């Protein structure tokens, strides 16, 4: 149950985490997943491909990322995702929101007596 709830929280965070990965450089599906795996460590299981690709396509429809293809090494083009200016702005807002949530938790639940 706790694990399930954890996953729900992470899924809520996932668009922010994906945009944050793309902040460093444009990346492709597997590259994004690997970057998230490194960042999330033991909790990496919450990032499943069945969640990641629909999320990337949704971010693209919302113009927060754009995609382009480049010739790949495996005989087929590779699709890259890149954060847009709107994506930058959205990420900034999201990070600020999470910072406020974190500060709120620090002041309340995590407060040491």
């Amino acid at each position, binding site marked *: 149950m706790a694990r399930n709830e954890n996953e729900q929280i992470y899924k809520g965070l996932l668009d922010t985490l994906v945009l944050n990965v793309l902040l460093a450089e*444009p990346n*492709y*599906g*597997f590259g994004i*997943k*690997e970057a998230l795996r490194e960042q999330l460590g033991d909790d990496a299981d919450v990032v*499943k*491909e*069945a969640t990641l*690709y*629909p999320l990337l*396509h949704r971010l693209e*429809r919302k113009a927060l990322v*754009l*995609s*382009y*293809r*480049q*010739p*790949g090494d*495996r*005989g*087929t*083009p*590779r*699709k*890259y995702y*890149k954060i*847009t*200016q709107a994506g*930058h702005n959205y990420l900034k807002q999201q990070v600020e929101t999470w910072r406020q949530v974190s500060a709120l938790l620090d002041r309340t639940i995590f407060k040491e007596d």
Partner: protein
Amino acid sequence: MKLHRLTRFPKHAFPTELDTGNTAIDQYLRDLDAGLAGSTGVRKMTLEETRDHLLESTDALIAQGQSPDAAGQQAVASFGAVEVHAKEQRQERCKLFITMFLRFGLTFATLMLLMSLLSMSSFLGEEKAARGFAENLPTLAKTYLFNATFFGFFMSYWFTFAFTQAKPAPVKPTEDGEVLEVYSQKGSKYAAVFLFIVMGGISLSCLAGLFGWGYMAASGIALNALLFLLGAQMAIGASVAWDRYELSQDALTIRSFTGHHRVPRAAIVDLVERSFWRSFIGVGIGKHYALIWQDEAGQRQTVNLVLNGEMHNSDSLIATLKATACDR
């Protein structure tokens, strides 16, 4: 009934060039393909991305010590159920179809309505044209709905389920570094010649009609003027197939019939996509962008870029120019 199968015209078969030699991956790709909507080119966009991921994932697992077969099976298992990905692609296409249906259908029907209103007698006949507007309203409304539905369906179907983005071409190595070239495919140029002849012919007929000559003479000044402009816009706009963009480390070079521009990359301020209506009435078939840059005197300049999916590397150019503008 699996309606998406109707969109797989003209070829239902799996594109065998995507076979990888790994049994688990190949079977997964075949199963996925069976659930996807669209022509081979449209389906390949999803299949290629999936294939790339599965092969990368398999290689990573092999590097960890697994056998190729076991790695392929695990990569497929962790990628998730085929139906989840297939359903997502179908829903995405469906949303695009509805958006395009409304956009193309309403635009075309409005244009046709405008033409009907400009020349009621040739559209409805002398007798009906003599009646009041209110009496003709049901006929006009029915025609509007028919045009919106028919043309909207035709165009949105093509755009959603048939049209495929041109394959990316490798960057060209030169003495001054790599150059990203954006240019149209040969097939697009043939289509552009056809469009130029047809639309140019319509435009010239209407121009003749404006002076009372030829078979368009009876259509009236307003309709002839509108069709002359539309025909000329499409005929001239077809020349976009010969536009060429070259992006080097230092500059973007634009070559088109209207001229030759060189914009230093360091001077690029922004790349703004024009509205649908601006692209619709602008000369050049494709999406219109305003490339804003600053000249040596510090004055802001704007160059119009027209890019479409039939051009190799057009998506890479947009991404790079936006990144250049962002970095500034």
